[in-house]
């Protein structure tokens, strides 16, 4: 979709992302309204993104950016009363109207991993019942065979003694262990896309590193595509091929992860990276972004949503809502992106 810029010598890896072949998942101009106190409010405003088979895409944003809502729309988990416009297609087929068996079949292909594993398991059911449920109910796999596959998969996420773990209850496992169980359970039905919504945010840093390593290895081994949702720009950039940055219910930047810090295309991305304290040095002052992040429903419809907080805002930013335009193999929703190119990166802000 993106018009490749003439100067854009695409870096290695970007080629697959730029749409060689059919994307596995394609989200086109997705707008979602939720019903809040009787009124409809937009939470997503024209979100478009693509994921190729086997590709890892980071979805980064602050509160209210719409990153989790995008994942929920993709997995058809929007709250009751939500209204949706636009298109979500998986393997070329529209999935926004699926129901019944077709929806279940789709969800077997798209597995979701949540932030808080304890909120997504039944505390009074054994790990084994939870893990094998989909196999037994939707795939007609007999119980003993399902249990064998579950124990195997536990081994793959680094949990030894799987047969014993299957007999345990969620409260007997630590948070990191339980999140590994969730990953194993998600992989059992042979999905082609993982939707991971802040899967390590609630974990200790050393556990986060372990869980990320497992997720990363398995994903590569199995050739799975992944959408990784996080507020942590550095984490997304470290494990994803491309990163999509969201603000106020819109995509504001799509960039190859390797270039995100050195050469961002949107002032918000640059500001977010600069605001984070640096573990290797103490800043005299942090470069905070003034104001607070706005949600889609608070954002103005006819100007850039980030303009009120942006150090580079000018008249053109308030004249119209900027579109998402191609630049150097990425995309930016900034009216001044071309002009600001090279002035937004890590070193440029000093």
């Amino acid at each position, binding site marked *: 979709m993106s018009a490749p810029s003439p100067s854009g010598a695409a870096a290695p890896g970007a080629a697959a992302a730029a749409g060689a072949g059919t994307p596995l998942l394609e989200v086109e101009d997705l707008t979602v309204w939720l019903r809040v106190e009787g009124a409809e409010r937009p939470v997503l405003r024209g979100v478009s993104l693509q994921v190729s088979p086997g590709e890892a895409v980071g979805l980064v944003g602050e509160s209210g950016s719409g990153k989790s809502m995008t994942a929920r729309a993709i997995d058809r988990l929007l709250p009751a009363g939500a209204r949706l416009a636009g298109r979500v297609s998986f393997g070329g087929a529209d999935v926004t109207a699926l129901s019944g068996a077709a929806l279940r079949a789709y969800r077997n292909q798209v597995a979701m991993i949540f932030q808080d594993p304890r909120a997504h398991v039944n505390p009074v059911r054994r790990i084994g019942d939870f893990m094998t449920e989909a196999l037994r109910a939707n795939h007609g796999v007999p119980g003993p065979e399902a249990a064998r596959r579950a124990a195997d998969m536990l081994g793959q996420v680094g949990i030894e003694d799987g047969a014993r773990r299957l007999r345990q209850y969620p409260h007997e496992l630590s948070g990191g262990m339980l999140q590994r169980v969730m990953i194993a359970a998600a992989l059992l039905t042979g999905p082609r896309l993982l939707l991971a919504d802040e899967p390590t945010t609630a974990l*200790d*840093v050393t556990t986060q590193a*372990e869980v990320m390593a497992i997720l990363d290895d398995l994903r590569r081994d199995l050739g799975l595509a992944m959408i990784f949702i996080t507020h942590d720009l550095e984490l997304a950039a470290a494990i994803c091929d491309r990163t999509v940055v969201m603000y106020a219910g819109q995509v504001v930047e799509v960039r190859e992860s390797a270039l995100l810090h050195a050469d961002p295309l949107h002032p918000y991305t640059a500001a977010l990276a600069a605001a*984070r304290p640096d*573990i290797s040095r*103490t800043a005299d002052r942090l470069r905070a972004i003034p104001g607070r*992040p706005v949600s889609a429903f608070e954002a103005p419809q006819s100007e850039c949503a980030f303009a009120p907080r942006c150090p580079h805002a000018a008249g053109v930013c308030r004249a119209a809502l900027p579109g998402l335009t191609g630049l150097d193999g990425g995309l930016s929703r900034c009216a001044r992106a071309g002009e600001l190119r090279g002035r937004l990166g890590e070193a440029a802000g000093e």
Partner: protein
Amino acid sequence: MSEPGGGPVLEVAGLRKVFGDLTAVEDVSFALPPGRSLAIVGESGSGKTTIARMIVGLERATAGTITACGRDRSRPARSAADRRRRGREVQIVFQDPYTSLDPRQSARDAIDEVLRLHHGWPAQRRRARVAELTDLVGLDERQARALPRALSGGQRQRVAIARALAAQPRVLILDESVAALDVSIQAQVLNLLADIRDSTGVSYVLISHDLAVVRQLTDDVIVLRRGRVVERGPTGEVLDQPRHEYTRRLRASVPRPGWKPGRGGLLAAGEDGDQDGR
């Protein structure tokens, strides 16, 4: 106000806390000089929050002493006056501003209540001080009048900080106080905390798992693991040249550009990461 000869504003010696069979804190000691800031770093189960709770009197130490401004506070306060005095020595700001504020109380009323309790000033003086404090933490007139539910997470955390400062404590314990904030807001609050320290001379004890935040705000650090101090020193030194294997593992687990996560606590080449990566 009265610690003799500029000694530490907070001193903890041989601190120990046992819950049933579990030793949550074992032989922890540190001293905090006036105006300096100390980080207590650790993961879940390290005992860091238990230490904070013992310092403010929410838990009683099994053994060891806690001294603030030269006065012992290892035992429960004997009287309301004693408890109030302790409140003027050490205050705490919790992680979650959604649950630590009274939902029926505006920022202004919450601060005013503390002023009345601790300083007994007349209304006019309290009003002026409320305005100063809300201004200091960057709340505008409307926000100062609003109930917590009408405020964002960052604004509520500012209210919690202003309320804690109203007691004019010498030590402010920040228990993961910026952990739940959006990155762009977290930077504002960290800058604010640095300004407040410059203008009031308050000392911080920052309880945190976030090493970048620790680097930004503190002078010294102690690293806790399963209730014990495994490493201590100036924050910059400990983070740049961690000596203990566990500190190295913590440091290596922080995502950064070019970072690759590793199983069992990935480390730079040559470091023995597997020891307790179980």
